[in-house]
């Protein structure tokens, strides 16, 4: 039975499912990473994703324009990011908890708006699969990697872009400085508040896209609470990836592939209790991180309040 897992269909299935499942995590987690790198912990990603998910769905439903829907999701995410930034930077709110407040608010609002504006579950026409020319035709590899919808490609492209921005641009330098030693950065003329506003709003935008990737790309529907905790996993993955984009990619892929694997285990009838299979991605992620030797220390100023003296 276990040997069934080694067939080509299964492996192809696991990897391509894994890639799809990774998409929302990549967006949300990298967005969160920028925020955390500048010193802000946002536990409200789930709320931002849910609102983004609904807005993308609703706008697409009403205007039949996917990109408009995506834009709307980004806007909503930005708004929530703005609120979070204000509460964190100006009001010095305890970050872990303010995030939970935004999570509850986002969840409540998305469900409320869904009930009042849409009413019953219905489908939209979401982003369709795009086959990359030439590459998409390669047997096996093409099927796995080059036959996804636009947002999946964008998510993976985001990783090297984020890496570049963080490590090779002045902006990235400023972000890291603010997260490591805000006092020093401040004395050098970097606006700590400005950078944090930027990263947190950016994080909100990406969470919005992550939510949209669920409702109008991977799926074509909005259902209440459809993120089912993915926002929290996304935050957790930032730690897994040691605040580095490629580390996050690794974590998201690991988690999603194992999730895809456990589905196949169930489908093939391998006699493991369903709950054990469902547990696998979580246990493995924890195990891998525990055993890995190189763990980042994390931005020193993470969750610490910064107040300008004088």
């Amino acid at each position, binding site marked *: 039975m276990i040997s069934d897992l080694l067939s080509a*269909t*299964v492996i*192809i*299935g696991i990897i391509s*499912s894994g890639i*799809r*499942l990774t998409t*929302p995590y990549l967006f949300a987690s990298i967005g969160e990473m920028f925020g955390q790198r500048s010193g802000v912990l946002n536990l409200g990603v789930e709320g931002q994703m849910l609102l983004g998910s609904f807005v993308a769905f609703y706008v697409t439903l009403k205007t039949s324009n996917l990109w408009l829907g995506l834009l709307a999701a980004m806007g909503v995410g930005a708004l929530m990011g703005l609120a979070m930034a204000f509460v964190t930077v100006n009001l010095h709110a305890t970050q872990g908890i303010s995030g939970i407040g935004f999570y509850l608010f986002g969840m409540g609002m998305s*469900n409320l708006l*869904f*009930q009042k504006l849409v*009413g*019953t*579950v*219905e*489908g939209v026409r979401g982003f369709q699969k795009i086959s990359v020319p030439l590459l998409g035709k390669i047997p096996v590899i093409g099927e796995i990697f080059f036959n996804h919808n636009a947002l999946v490609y964008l998510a993976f492209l985001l990783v090297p872009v984020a890496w570049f921005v963080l490590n090779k641009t002045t902006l990235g330098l400023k972000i890291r400085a603010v997260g490591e030693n805000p006092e020093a950065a401040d004395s050098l003329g970097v606006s700590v508040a400005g950078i944090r506003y930027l990263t947190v709003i950016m994080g909100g935008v990406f969470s919005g896209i992550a939510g949209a990737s*669920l409702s109008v790309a*991977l*799926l*074509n*529907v909005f*259902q*209440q*609470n*459809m993120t*089912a*905790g*993915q926002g929290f996993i996304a935050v957790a993955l930032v730690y897994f990836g040691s605040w580095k984009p490629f580390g996050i990619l690794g974590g998201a892929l690991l988690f999603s592939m194992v*999730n*895809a694997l456990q*589905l*196949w285990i*169930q*489908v*093939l*009838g391998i006699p493991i209790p*369903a*709950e054990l299979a*469902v547990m696998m991605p979580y246990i493995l992620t924890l195990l891998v991180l525990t055993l890995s030797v190189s763990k980042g220390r994390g931005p020193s100023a993470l969750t610490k309040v910064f107040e300008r003296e004088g």
Partner: protein
Amino acid sequence: MKKVFTLVSVLLVVAMFLGACAQTPEAESPATGGETSEPLRIAVVSPSSINDLAFTQSISDALIVLKAEMGDDLEYAFTENMFVVDDAAAAIRDYATKGYDIVIAHGSQYGSSVQEIAPDFPETVFAWGTTVDTFGLPNVHAYEAASDQGGYVNGVMAGMLTKSKIIGVVGPIETGDAKLYVDGFVAGVKSVDPSIDVRVTYIGSFSDVALAAEAATTHIAAGADILTGSAQMVVGAIGKAEEAGLYWFGTQANQNAFAPKTVVASQVYHWEVILREIISLHAAGIMGGHTFSATLQNGGQVITINPEIELSEEIKTKVEEVIAGINDGSIVIPKP
């Protein structure tokens, strides 16, 4: 600044008190003399969302039907998302205290709460589902759905429609209604052809739509050409079936409209059939002690076939046969 704060807060608190006082007279609205008797008041407490296209929606739909029938003679209140048993208990007790005639606890996890609360309110009818235990209390009804019946019929259709002889099931958690439906479904499939492989996956969540979709994708990649499943997250799975041009069988609510070319049939619960009985018993002064089952026979569950999908005469006849067989008892659905 402080003064403003204090002033505003004081105003708010005063407003709340006023609001609280304003309520009590409202609750005692006198029956307008000369008119027909007061409307029947029903309250429903349910664990998920009112539009989950599944469990809770089904009871909500039932009340909408009743309201349309009874018009002003019926007044109802609905409290959804009571997945915390505690909160549900408070809700049930509250509705009873407010004098609702019938309180419906639409969730199998509410049993202990009903058992505790019912004796305190002998004038209130309590109905809870999905189960058959009335605790021997005079004012408690119990109702359930013989979901395995609908599952069986769906299974028969699926068995006849499948070409690859592989069928996939996407479930949330292996309990309750979901399990009953699945068991019936599998039995139905096997009755057509025991060699058909029915694969069941439980994704461990009621809300993870993306995971349900991937489960469906996995089934399809593994060769399934017919899918079914239960709970609110299956909309993702249905979407994938639609994309792949395959068939889906629905349960709990009418999912036909959601994917008109994909959903062959849905087992729809019509709880109003049971509710009507409870209401007439109440009118006759009987407060409880009965158990009801939503079956194919009494119309409590209906297999709604999607008119947009062409089914062969052979299948249609078989479905009628099977339903008749279940109704007259000649077909007994085996337990796993």
